[in-house]
């Protein structure tokens, strides 16, 4: 139990520290690397929550796929001039006030509902232990959520075609 607590706080530190560095760095490459740290922390949290398949997906897809895409675009687009300019826009004060209001609402909700979130520890029914996490996810994905799965594949096809069309010089 203690090791869980320590690991949670380590991963939480990685997630929040990486997130804060992501939105404050001037250099976009530094932001991307901080974002990788943050995403790895999220992957660790998935592991703590016994979502092993999502842990692998997070590392392979996010850190290995999306972040490489980001770094490629940072290389393609010349960001040197942007790094010399102002980094925050003029509405930052309004934005901070709005976000603080949303944060106060969410914190109040979590604080009030604190007792409602304790069903995890004393729930009696457990998932069948003999079946692995990947198998459970696959069962659910291909039985209950087959139509959304197919629609997601169409979405990916549209995204592929769309990004090729966007990045082409002349169509």
């Amino acid at each position, binding site marked *: 139990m203690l090791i869980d607590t320590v690991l949670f706080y380590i991963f939480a530190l990685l997630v929040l520290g990486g997130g804060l560095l*992501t939105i404050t760095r001037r250099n976009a490459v530094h932001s991307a690397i901080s974002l990788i740290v943050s995403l790895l922390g999220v992957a660790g949290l998935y592991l703590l929550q016994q979502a092993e398949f999502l842990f692998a997906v997070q590392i392979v897809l996010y850190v290995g796929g999306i972040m490489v895409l980001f770094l490629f675009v940072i290389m393609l687009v010349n960001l040197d001039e942007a790094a010399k300019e102002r980094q925050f826009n003029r509405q930052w004060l309004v934005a901070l006030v709005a976000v603080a209001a949303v944060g106060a609402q969410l914190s109040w909700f979590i604080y009030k509902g604190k007792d409602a979130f304790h069903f995890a520890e004393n729930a009696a029914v457990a998932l069948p232990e003999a079946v692995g996490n990947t198998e459970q996810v696959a069962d659910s994905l291909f039985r209950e959520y087959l139509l959304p799965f197919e629609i997601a594949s169409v979405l990916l096809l549209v995204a592929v075609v769309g990004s090729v069309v966007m990045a082409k010089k002349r169509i």
Partner: protein
Amino acid sequence: MHPIGTVHYLALSTALLLIGTVGVLTRRNIVIILMSIELILNAVNINLIVFSHALHSVSGQVFAIFVITDAVAEAAVGLGILIALFRNKETVLADEIDLLKW
């Protein structure tokens, strides 16, 4: 020390969501705005995974997969738009793209 419960994870994902929102609303660089959107989507995913664990149901993890699919599609299309934009306007600052502003 308190055992880590669902509420700790929810507080963490709230903080991550707010960090991402601040990034989207205040930064000028479009690449970093897109990265902040990834932070927001990850906050949502933490929520889904935590409730999936708490309710002993695997549906939350399936929905997290759909959210990741969306994030991939969004990142690919967004970065494609960014490249097209940079080719035409030579800028990556969001508030300099103001053709539709009066």
